[in-house]
């Protein structure tokens, strides 16, 4: 049995420096307090943690490989590049690490109904999957624009028995889906658990999501030591809300020699204003229950994010990342839509792996970074998901053919 569910405390309840907190309607407060108590109780119970580990191993297929990308390394011409293959998880992304944990937690709390939001559809599919597995009722809110971009994931969720509700408000993307999921939760809070999919939202969600995603970093740490006898020099992950990145980074936070790099989506370019880079271009503020970096105008209205990748198309970055940026522990940078498309094509060609557009942002930056590093150095990319869902989008973006 894999024992990866290692849990840590936040510095103060629900705060990461000055970020985080619980900025939600009073109707949800009791549910959040109950959730925190139930979570504390669950993670202290070996029966629960063993159960999570069991499903991660036998259902999800963990552990995922840490793969030495030899040809990509040659291409980059510097550090040895390893890929943490979260794309090989059941359902195709890291999202299921969290949904398995939260679904088991919901059942332990006696809740038989689940609501969730989804952007790219990966979290929605991962949620619908565990709801099918555990026989839970499932409602997924998804933006209209994302439904268009990720049509197959919608059908996938429906095959799995979930009800997918289209959100037409705002930009019809992840932010609007979270608004609707929150509204649904407020109205159904007594019998429904909200499986938030990213390291966002009111406390205790950022902590719960991080803890369930920590398995990525914990495995990576052990695997790289087995293969190389030491820790890596750099780790690169993409950031929308930040769940794969925080899961990967967290076990390395205290290892000061390990450089941590978070890659935001720069969309059409930061200077165009059409992007999703909340750290690069946002201000501190409150959205969806947490104090964090948020894209907003001068009156405090939240702005729409723009990215070719639905999973990064969110106008804020989670509270723990906001804090890690402030204390300078993680370096946050960004890659444009065009860069992500290049990263995707490169990895497909030289390694036979089509990454998700989200992960392709990390690939693109990592190749640049590796090129500046020595051959004796080691870089790990968190390959958070596979690109099957994005093939249509990529084809459209490339004008129906390949631009070599």
């Amino acid at each position: 049995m894999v024992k990866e569910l290692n849990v840590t405390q936040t510095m103060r309840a629900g705060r990461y420096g000055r970020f985080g907190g619980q900025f939600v309607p009073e109707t949800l407060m009791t549910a959040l307090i109950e959730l925190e108590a139930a979570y504390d109780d669950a993670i202290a119970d070996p029966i629960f943690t063993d159960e999570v580990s069991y499903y991660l191993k036998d259902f999800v297929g963990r552990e995922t490989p840490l793969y030495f990308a030899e040809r990509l390394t040659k291409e980059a011409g510097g550090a040895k590049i390893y890929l943490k293959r979260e794309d090989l998880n059941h359902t195709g992304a890291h999202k299921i690490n969290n949904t398995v944990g939260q679904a088991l937690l919901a059942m332990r709390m006696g809740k038989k109904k689940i609501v969730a939001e989804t952007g790219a559809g990966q979290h929605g599919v991962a949620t619908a999957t565990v709801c099918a597995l555990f026989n839970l009722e499932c409602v997924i809110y998804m933006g209209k624009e994302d439904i268009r971009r990720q049509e197959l994931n919608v059908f996938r969720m429906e095959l799995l028995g979930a009800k997918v509700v289209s959100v037409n408000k705002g930009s019809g993307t992840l932010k609007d889906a979270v608004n609707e999921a929150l509204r649904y939760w407020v109205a159904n809070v007594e019998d429904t658990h909200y499986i938030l999919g990213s390291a966002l939202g009111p406390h205790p969600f950022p902590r719960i999501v991080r803890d369930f995603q920590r398995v990525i970093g914990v495995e990576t740490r052990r695997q790289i030591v087995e293969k190389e006898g030491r820790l890596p020099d750099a780790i690169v992950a993409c950031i929308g809300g930040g769940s794969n990145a925080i899961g990967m980074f967290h076990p390395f936070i205290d290892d000061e020699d390990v450089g941590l790099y978070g890659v935001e989506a720069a969309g059409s370019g930061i200077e165009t204003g059409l992007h999703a880079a909340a750290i690069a271009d946002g201000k501190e503020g409150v959205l969806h229950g947490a104090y964090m970096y948020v894209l907003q105008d001068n009156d405090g209205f939240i702005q729409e994010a723009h990215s070719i990748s639905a999973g990064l198309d969110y106008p804020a970055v989670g509270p723990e990342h906001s804090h890690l940026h402030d204390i300078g522990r993680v370096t946050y940078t960004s890659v444009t839509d065009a860069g992500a498309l290049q990263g995707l094509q490169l990895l497909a060609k030289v390694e036979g792996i089509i990454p998700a557009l989200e992960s392709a942002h990390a690939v693109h930056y990592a190749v640049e970074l590796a090129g500046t590093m020595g051959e004796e150095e080691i870089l790990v990319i968190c390959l958070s998901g596979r690109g099957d869902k994005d093939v249509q989008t990529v084809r459209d973006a490339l004008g129906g053919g390949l631009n070599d």
Partner: protein
Amino acid sequence: MTKQDLTNAITDCVARGDKAFVPYIMAGDGGLETIKNTILFLQQTGVTAIELGIPFSDPVADGPVIEEAGERALAKGITLRKVVKELASFKNEVTVPLVIMTYLNPILSYGIDQFAKDCQDSGISGLIVPDLPHEESGLLQNSLEKSEIALIPLVSLTSPPERIKKITAAAEGFVYAVTVNGITGVRDGFGDDLAAHLEQLKAVSPVPVLAGFGISTPEQVQSIGALADGVIVGSAIVAAFHRNDLMTVEELVKASKKEIYS
């Protein structure tokens, strides 16, 4: 007007045998210049106080009627700053207490201290922030303590008794009792446990208790009003103003008065 004036307006109303009636309007639905006329109209209908909603890009506590009104107001360029400034321009003509309802982020963007000062200058006596629960209220309370503005707490059906005591202990102005689990908007019915909940809330609250969310008809104004010190009516008022149906507004207000009510 001060937070004490707000409390007094409600208690005076109850002392007369009426129920307090607080309409919610979306500030600037129809344009910034409509705010004054709407407020002056409402105060001559006999409302107890007026709640002005500030439009927001992500109004998670609001149902479709108020959200759409907010979108219309946003399209007219309405912001928190503009509304506060507009209110200052005719504050001498206002005879009922005004309460601002806004989500937290526009206040943070405004600057908390500056916002508290400007509200004071505009004669605003209360503030409702639906995404600021008791645990986080210190964020605003420190700045508001120096002012004459009440931070009005919300209590929901899901708030357990111990929590209700904690929330209401230092309450000022009035307590906003959320009558349903869910968002604002029209509803057919209310839960059976509402009466007991409101009774318990009134027993512990040091300030009046007004019930709101889902109250949309004169009958509901009376039936829910009977369980509290008064009611807040939002979506039905917003919808009536939008279709310029002032008679419906007047009928809703009238339903809170003793001669009709008893």
